[in-house]
């Protein structure tokens, strides 16, 4: 299959379009500007919907509208913009309407800067908006995975009627890599039992998160949790690399997993048995596989472009069976291969 040298952000667009995206709603913010620019051209040429919304709030709520009718819809932004989308994400979770939201992370907090970062892990995996809910979170680490995860996220979002976030970063979004378009174009979609498509021949439907009747909201939350348990059971995805005999296991996702992999290869050359577990879904998190590898003689090292967020989940997974160390940089700083290697060597002592 021929390869295309394209940016992660463009690969993402191609994946979504191939998955049958009906509508894209966006707003400019660096480093995800390629997405609305590309969509404004290709979606319109294909006779599909593109709107540059007046705000991130609107863009996310337009996704809600389109997906309320069962039509595949997506929005993308970067960290400060994702904060604004949290309102709609909480509603989508509560209303059980699917949606795909892409975060090409930049440095924060606040306006931060435009460099790639990974400091929105907590926001993405622990809720972000109000209420007891989870968002399924994919963490691509290449342009190829931007394409594939964008494609796959719609099926998952619809299967569970829940919002899916693709948590990328400025580096993965901006970099070009050869990408294989290895997914079939999706053209036919099954009718959805919940979609608002006009009440011809059936009772009217409503989508709502407001449940005022005694006990109704609590029951709704119990039902949502059942669904989340189902997702945890079925949808955990990760990559595992030379972890079987490893004394030091790195846990890293997205861009930092690539940097960390370089470091662990160098460590292996020095005779240090290092391996890696790379979560491809951050929620549900691969607790089980991490726990399975924890134990005497094994140390964990979490590498992130943040001040330490995912490391908390790694500690939960390890559950005291192994020491868990952290190395990271924040605010758009990029951790070097050498720094990770040094840390591995230090842990080996």
């Amino acid at each position: 299959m021929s390869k295309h040298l394209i940016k992660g952000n463009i690969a993402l667009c191609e994946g979504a379009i191939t998955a049958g995206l009906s509508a894209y709603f966006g707003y400019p913010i660096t480093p995800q500007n390629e997405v609305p620019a590309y969509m404004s051209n290709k979606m319109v040429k294909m006779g599909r919907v593109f709107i540059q919304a007046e705000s991130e709030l609107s863009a996310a709520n337009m996704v809600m509208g389109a997906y309320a009718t069962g039509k595949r819809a997506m929005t993308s932004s970067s960290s400060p913009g994702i904060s604004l989308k949290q309102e709609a994400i909480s509603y989508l979770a509560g209303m059980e309407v699917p949606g795909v939201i892409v975060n090409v992370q930049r440095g924060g907090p606040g306006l931060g800067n435009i460099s790639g970062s990974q400091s929105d892990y907590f926001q993405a995996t622990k809720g972000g908006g109000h209420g007891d809910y989870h968002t399924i979170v994919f963490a691509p680490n290449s342009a190829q995975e931007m394409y594939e995860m964008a494609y796959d996220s719609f099926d998952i979002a619809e299967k569970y009627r829940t919002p899916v976030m693709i948590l990328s970063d400025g580096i993965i979004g901006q970099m070009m890599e050869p990408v294989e378009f290895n997914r079939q174009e999706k053209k036919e979609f099954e009718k959805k039992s919940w979609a608002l498509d006009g009440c011809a021949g059936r009772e009217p439907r409503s989508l709502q998160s407001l449940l005022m009747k005694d006990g109704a909201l609590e029951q709704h939350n119990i039902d949502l949790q059942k669904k989340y348990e189902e997702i945890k059971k079925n949808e955990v995805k990760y990559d595992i690399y030379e972890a079987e005999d490893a004394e030091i296991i790195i846990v890293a996702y997205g861009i930092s997993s690539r940097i960390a992999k370089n470091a662990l290869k160098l460590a292996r050359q020095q005779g240090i048995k290092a391996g890696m577990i790379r979560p491809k879904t951050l929620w549900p998190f691969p607790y089980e596989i991490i726990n399975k590898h924890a134990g005497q003689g094994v140390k964990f090292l979490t590498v992130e472009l943040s001040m330490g967020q995912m490391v908390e989940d790694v500690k939960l997974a390890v559950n005291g069976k192994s020491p868990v160390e952290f190395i990271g940089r924040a605010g758009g700083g990029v951790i070097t291969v050498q720094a990770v290697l040094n840390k591995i060597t230090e842990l080996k002592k």
Partner: protein
Amino acid sequence: MKTYNEIIIAGFGGQGVLLAGNILAQSAMEEGLNTTWFPSYGAEMRGGTANSTVIISDDEIGSPIAFNPSGLIALNALSLDKFLPRMSENAVIIANSSIINEDDYKNKNIIFIPISEIADKEIGNIRAANMVAVGALIKALNVPALDNVLNAVKNAFAKKEGLSELNIKAVKAGYDYKI
């Protein structure tokens, strides 16, 4: 790993450093190698320097950011000053002597080529300077192969009449420049 190069191409915004990187990555891909391209972007590009980083490897590529660059094209002095201290030992450094004063960099292992002059006088278009530099770089690095680079240039300018020939000529001029 037999082949592993981290290449930085830097210059003023408008000197075509993003495209030059793109051509290198494209030709590496055609050569069957792994490659990544990473740009400077956003406000970073307003004034001062722009740059792109290309990594070419026969193995899986980790970071797309260069921590140990082995190749540099510096189209202006600002870029040379910025990246010179970051270069690895024995790195191939190509600098544009048309607008960089060689005397300021004595005893440093830099290949000075009058890149802008070659583009302007020999090729007839100063905007082809980036391609002259690409030609010189691939000669010195020995990767990617000239044919693949020329092919990538041809494809990149396929829709623009005449530009394809001009840029191919520019790459060749850089490649053939006697250091």
